[in-house]
């Protein structure tokens, strides 16, 4: 457990003075999301700044340094039968908490247990002016000052280095169980929205290749009652399927062809694309394998009230409307006026 805040600040100060950009890195397991993947940029390595600072199981709050490996966070939480509610993808060993928060990616339980942002209570941010500030705190309710802490979830380090992060954590449910229903896509979408309207302990609704999987988690009696309501068959894979879905390692994701993630309203119809689909988040997150031109996919997602991101072979994101792009650039400049931290990580020449 080491505090390297001072060294990190020194490196940023030097970069700010010389005007040379820095590439913030933790475990480097999420670099496929970056648009700034230049290998000759100086690296700001956050990994040495690591360790759990405080963990209060009775308060459901954990505070840890940004460089702390996710494995360490998970084992600390597991000892108290608790977990990260947003269940971040691991991708590979060595993922850091800072990277998990900065990338803002959440697992299959996202619609029920919340986003990464939802779990963030506070951060200490070391910004592009080498100044650190505490935003938010260690308590569930806090409305003093603008919510800079949650603004950093998903910001990919564009506003600063997450020195430490306080998160709301959750109890591990007594029991998890997966049911499988053999249904086609249209029927699956109808079933998913119907199930989500009922007060059932659902923490996963995913469909691929004619199989709808329903994950239930809660108390033993609660799950048993829900099994009867959901129907379907028991599923042998149980946790392994959901972990592979979360980590984007199912067979569906394999191969070199383009991989798109579409975030759409659950009720949006299926985009008119020649594609192979996997639906997660009850239909709100739709993974798509297609050779359609990027412009076609982005346009289709926008027309349905959502957005899209290509994760492979190279990242591409739905563009921001001009007024929004201007505002986001001004927000970046508040924390990093010299544009030295991860410039272009989200959008080249903008953010």
């Amino acid at each position, binding site marked *: 457990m080491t505090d390297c805040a001072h060294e990190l600040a020194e490196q940023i100060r030097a970069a700010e003075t010389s005007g040379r950009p820095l590439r913030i890195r933790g475990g480097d397991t999420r670099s496929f999301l970056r648009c700034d993947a230049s290998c000759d940029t100086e690296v700001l390595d956050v990994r040495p700044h690591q360790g759990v600072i405080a963990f*209060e*199981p*009775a*308060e459901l*709050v954990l505070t840890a340094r940004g460089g702390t490996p996710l494995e360490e966070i998970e084992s600390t939480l597991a000892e108290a*039968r608790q977990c990260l509610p947003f269940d971040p993808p691991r991708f590979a060993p060595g993922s850091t908490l800072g990277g998990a928060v900065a990338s*803002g990616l959440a697992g299959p339980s*996202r*619609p029920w247990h*919340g*986003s990464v942002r939802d779990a963030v209570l506070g951060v200490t941010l070391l910004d592009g002016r080498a100044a*650190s*500030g*505490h935003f938010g*705190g*260690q*308590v*569930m*309710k*806090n*409305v*003093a*000052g*603008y*919510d*800079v802490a*949650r*603004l950093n979830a*998903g*910001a990919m380090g564009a*506003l600063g280095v997450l020195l430490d992060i306080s998160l709301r954590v*959750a*109890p591990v449910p*007594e029991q998890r169980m997966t049911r499988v229903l053999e249904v086609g896509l249209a029927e699956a979408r109808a079933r998913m929205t119907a199930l989500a*309207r*009922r*007060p*059932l*302990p659902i923490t996963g609704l995913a469909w691929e290749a004619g199989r709808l999987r329903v994950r239930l988690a809660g*108390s033993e*009696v609660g799950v*048993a*009652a829900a099994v009867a309501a959901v129907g379907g068959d028991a599923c042998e894979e149980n946790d392994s399927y959901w972990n592979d879905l979360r980590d984007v390692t199912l067979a569906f994701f394999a191969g070199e062809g383009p991989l798109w993630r579409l*975030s*759409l*309203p*659950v*009720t949006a119809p299926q985009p008119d694309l020649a594609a192979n689909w996997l639906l997660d988040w009850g239909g709100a997150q739709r993974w798509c394998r297609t050779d359609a031109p990027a412009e076609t996919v982005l346009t289709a997602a926008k027309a349905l*009230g*959502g*957005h899209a991101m290509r994760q492979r072979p190279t990242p591409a994101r739905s563009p*921001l*409307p001009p007024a*929004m*792009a201007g*505002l986001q650039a001004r*927000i970046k400049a*508040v*924390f990093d006026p010299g544009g030295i931290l991860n410039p272009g990580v*989200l959008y080249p020449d903008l953010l």
Partner: protein
Amino acid sequence: MDRATLAARLRDILPADAVVAEEEALRPYAGDALTAYRRLPRVVALPRSIEEVQAVMRLCALEGVPVVARGAGTGLSGGALPDESGVLLVLARMNRILDLDPVARTARLEPGVRNLAISEAAAPHGLYYAPDPSSQIACSIGGNVAENSGGVHCLKYGLTVHNLLGVKLITADGELLEIGGAALDAPGLDLLALVTGSEGLLGLVVEVTVRLLPTPAATRVLLAAFDAIDAAADAVAAVISGGIVPAGMEMMDRLAIEAAEDFVAAGYPRDAAAILLCEVDGEPDEVEAQVARVSEILAASGATGIRVARDAAERARFWAGRKAAFPAVGRIAPDYYCMDGTIPRRHLAQVLLEIERLAATFGLAVANVFHAGDGNLHPLILYDANAEGELERAEAFGARILELCVSVGGTITGEHGVGIEKIDQMCVQFSAVELERFHSLKAAFDPNGRLNPGKAVPTLARCAELGGMHVHGGALPHPELERF
């Protein structure tokens, strides 16, 4: 711009009944629920559409006129206190539910829709909107977004920010921005949380999309009595450590219990030092199992009596005492001042003891009600505004309580907002660098500082002047600044 000219210019772009400029008619708009602060706006505008709001904002941008937004006026921190040279933009007339989609489980709302009206409209579909501030019968969703309002069910269901999908925001220049939407996330920086709780300083919320939740199949409430505050605090920790996240977990101290009993006869034990109300919800069999488990834990934590509400009527009665706590306390003193600090729960006993000590020092009584699950403390300081110097003493006492909350790792406001009321305590909680970033963020949205000026974030000069008064942890909060 003088009142008559401004009113005339507004009448050029709004219907006649949407502009109020007569002094008598302006009075009802002079303040919000923090009644100690009142001042008249130059003019009140009551738009009915996004286009009308944009027209007002463009005029105000052109003429450099400040704008303060107001919803139902139920805020407790003076956030909607008018600017004397500005327009008070009242959004209460924009009160339509634009769309309620039971399949998507979302509702699209104009900002003036009342909080409770959302759940009422969703109820026939077996759905509801989770955040339930105590003013939910009157407060509006636009104000809830501006304040990031909470309620008694936050530990399990979150604050306003956790239940939003998107907002439409009009900037100081009258430009319409869509932040979030009907999908679960949006490209680029996530501005939804930044805008939520920004107290009308970054933009005006003119449309809100919320998510709706399925109404739990069963709900039970337990009432437990304790003969010591710290035993009650330990019981809360034990329940949560036991893997149970209650839907609601409320604590009241002896003075609050007595006031509530006198007022609504909720059936609380008058001899208890503290009571806990614990609500669990879920599938019926699961709830029964949880009630048994929670009862066990409460008993093991030293509860002197535990009762489980037998039916909906008794459950409502248990809650009635808690929900009426503020007006109940209002009956035992001419005035009360409601604080809103949040603390890490493990410091509860220590903080309450210190509040008791401060009460003796200031010579004022205090009743405590506490959202125990999430650490949000509402000490109610009793005073008499007509007695010479009592208001000032109550305010000084309140300020000390908030500084106490900060000193144990908490915050000066959990759910009521900073507004004008707690602006000086911001200097205690935040450093000069942090405050400077807040001001720069404000400028990124509103470069001329015309939206709700003077609220929520103090100037560095103001903090420097207060520095001598607020010595925190033995150190001045801003040693780097000059003292005058």
